């Protein structure tokens, strides 16, 4: 009963304080809301990421090559029209520049992110054997995503033109080697037939070439915004639950300095009941925090936390691990003056290391297996991993190993923390 009384007292104090409401609930939800709007959120109704259109300066220096029979193939103009087309409007904000120098200067002045410079001789390279040309994509070096989109779009079109020429040339070349006479009409027939084929393929928007499947789930394409927010919310929840666990354990030091703890020890109440009461209040407050964050994020951001039994166990493991880690960390401190730097510094550092995979997820080429391993050097990393497995559609069996590690860590932290406090107050 005394344990419950002490736990109730600490619980009331925590709920009356600003720290729990600010750090425990408001800040994680606030940060997740920031990222929700950062990646489109309400604006991106189709679930796609709402990335700002890239400002492009376009220059077409191509003079179409004259073909047999006076036919001019304006390949440069075709590419320019494609870049300016309505279907790319949401991705590219295109302005036509007077010349290449003006286009590059606009990028240098940061008025545009990318300049697309179609060279003179582009059409000739597409039609005349032996000729080559390169479309220049001149970019702002601080940008990654926008130039990648522009390069991808331009490359797709350029590839189609190159494919047509390669198809006609190589087929004609092989025919010639085998003694079949290849006249311009045959070459043109091959090119036109290839063009029809490519056009049909284009209408199917690549589905005839490639089917993409997200690992660990059904064939449906993922909701990009939802996926990002789910990851961030899981990271924020873990990050701030550990903060709350440490803050609750800090009350031991506060009571020690205020003198109430030593006075408690002079009473018949056993030490185990006193420390047990503190731990119990910590676990209860952490359960409240986790449940509120899970429910609010599911309702407001649409986060699907996976199978209920998995989510419940992961929540329990997180609560126990964060609570015991807070107890352990606090047992290392001499007084509350040290707690500021330790909680703010150590917990921030460990939390960010644990979430490193979340920060790097959106950047191509970033992250990787080694950083997943580095994250697991922290207890926060294991907790994040458990939630990521559930968010990826993992079953209870998939996440049990991780939960087991979390419970082992919790036991170790709890044991060490309790031992240190017993020695301290012996």
């Amino acid at each position, binding site marked *: 009963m005394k344990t419950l009384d002490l736990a109730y007292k600490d619980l009331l104090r925590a709920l009356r304080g600003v720290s729990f409401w600010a750090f425990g609930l408001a800040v994680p939800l606030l940060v997740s809301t920031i990222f929700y709007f950062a990646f489109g959120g309400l604006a991106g109704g189709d679930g796609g990421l709402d990335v700002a259109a890239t400002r492009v300066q376009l220059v077409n220096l191509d003079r179409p090559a004259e073909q047999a029979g006076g036919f001019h193939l304006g390949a440069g103009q075709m590419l320019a029209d494609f870049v300016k087309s309505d279907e790319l409007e949401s991705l590219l904000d295109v302005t036509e520049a007077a010349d290449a120098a003006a286009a590059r200067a606009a990028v240098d002045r940061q008025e545009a992110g990318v300049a697309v410079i179609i060279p003179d001789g582009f059409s000739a390279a597409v039609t005349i054997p032996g000729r080559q040309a390169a479309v220049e994509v001149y970019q702002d070096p601080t940008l990654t995503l926008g130039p990648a989109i522009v390069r991808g779009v331009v490359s797709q079109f350029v590839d189609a033109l190159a494919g047509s020429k390669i*198809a006609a040339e190589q087929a004609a070349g092989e025919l010639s080697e085998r003694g079949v006479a290849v006249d311009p009409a045959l070459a043109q027939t091959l090119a036109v037939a290839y063009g029809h084929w490519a056009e049909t393929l284009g209408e199917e928007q690549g589905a005839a070439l490639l089917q993409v499947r997200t690992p660990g789930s059904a064939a449906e394409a993922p909701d990009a915004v939802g996926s990002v927010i789910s990851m961030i919310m899981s990271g924020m929840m873990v990050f701030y639950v550990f903060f709350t666990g440490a803050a609750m354990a800090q009350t031991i030091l506060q009571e020690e300095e205020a003198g109430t703890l030593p006075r408690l020890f002079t009473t018949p109440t056993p030490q185990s009941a006193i420390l047990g009461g503190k731990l119990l209040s910590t676990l209860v407050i952490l359960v409240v925090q986790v449940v509120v964050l899970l429910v609010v994020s599911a309702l407001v951001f649409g986060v699907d936390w996976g199978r209920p039994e998995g989510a419940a166990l992961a929540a329990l493991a997180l609560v126990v691990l964060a609570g015991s880690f807070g107890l352990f960390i606090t047992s290392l401190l001499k007084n509350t003056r040290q707690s500021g730097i330790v909680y703010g510094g150590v917990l921030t550092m460990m939390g960010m290391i644990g979430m490193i995979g979340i920060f790097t997820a959106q950047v191509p080429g970033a992250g990787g297996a080694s950083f997943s391993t580095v994250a697991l050097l922290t207890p926060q990393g294991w907790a994040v991993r458990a939630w990521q497995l559930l968010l990826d559609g993992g079953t209870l069996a998939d996440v049990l190993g991780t939960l087991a590690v979390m419970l082992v860590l919790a036991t170790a932290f709890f044991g060490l923390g309790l031992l240190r406090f017993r020695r301290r107050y012996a």
Partner: protein
Amino acid sequence: MRVMDLAIKDVLQLVRDWKAALFLLVMPIVFTLLFGLAFGGAGGAEDSRLPVGLVDREQSRLGASLLQLLETSAAIRPEVLTGRDAEPKRLEKRLQDGELAGVVIVPEGYEQRLLAGETAPLTLLADESQGAGTTARGEVQAAALRLAGSVEAARLGAEAFAERATLTDDEARAEFTWATIDRAVAAWQSPPVTVSAAQSGALAAEAEAQTMAQSGYSHTSPAMMVQFAIAGLIGAAEVLVLERRSRALRRLLTTAISRVEIVLGHYLAMFAMIAAQLIILIAFGQLLLGVGYMRAPLATGLLVLATALWTASLGLLIGVLAKTEDQVIIYSLVPMFILSGMGGAWMPLEFTGKTFQSIGHLLPTAWAMDGFKNVIVRGLGLESVLLPVGIMLAYGVVLFALAVWRFRFE
């Protein structure tokens, strides 16, 4: 002189606490290294392309041609997977662990269907909600198109061959087809029209400098510097709070030092601490990570000055508003998260939506990042940092004015 004496007292109080060094130097260095490596490291690595697995279920000749085409990609590096490495569970695990950006699977019957002119899609396992997955999709799709195009070219050529050479022998037709496919795939090594990339800025002519500019550190070095300049305010603001709570501030007022001097003394201490922190971290970035801060020393110096001034103003405001040490932590860390997250320190703002980018640029952190990147990535000079410096100074003035207005000596 009294201002200096008070500032020196505050600085000594801070540096005597070894834990201040943790926040001010150790953590930003550790995070710069960690996140810098995560965002791509020092650049110029032997092969920094995204690894993509290739599983050929039928071990076909077209599968080998596909590999040839994937190897020409500038963005992905194919990794052939066979045996146990090609088992579905192992593939999924490697994808989830981030070891692979994607896995291309050549299904059974792919070659036969493609040669017959039928639709034959490859399968790509990839998470398109992540940047690496999107990149993998683009590159694999391009390679798949080139391969399918090569096969179509061979098929059209074989039809023409059959018509003109009255070809009836299937073996000869097959030989023609494969020879044309091989020629076409080889021709893609040097296509007639390509896309070439070039970078703007003063670094454009320096190949090595370009690589450095694209390194992960060129983002994380200034980002962690700005973020931990704010985090470091915890210690500095605590000095002010303790001084008020212990009534030392009231006792100071009984001395000859004026109120203005007290405010300036504390502000100067915070400014000195942050400026020293920034200088040390810049030296670390320049000497050990190759980040080009010293390309334009005057520009970098102005940025350090402006960043230290507005951050110190924020620190003064925090010290003024907070009544307890707990509040100092909250009032320091919450702005740190918001200013860093929204200002592009955690992740470049270009990855966010247009509205968010506009909002982010209302914050001084975004302008600090712009200023530093103008120097270290674009290789620009003094002129390019004047606007960011001006905006940061304006923030410094506003925050300082707020702090002075709210300063209570009792």
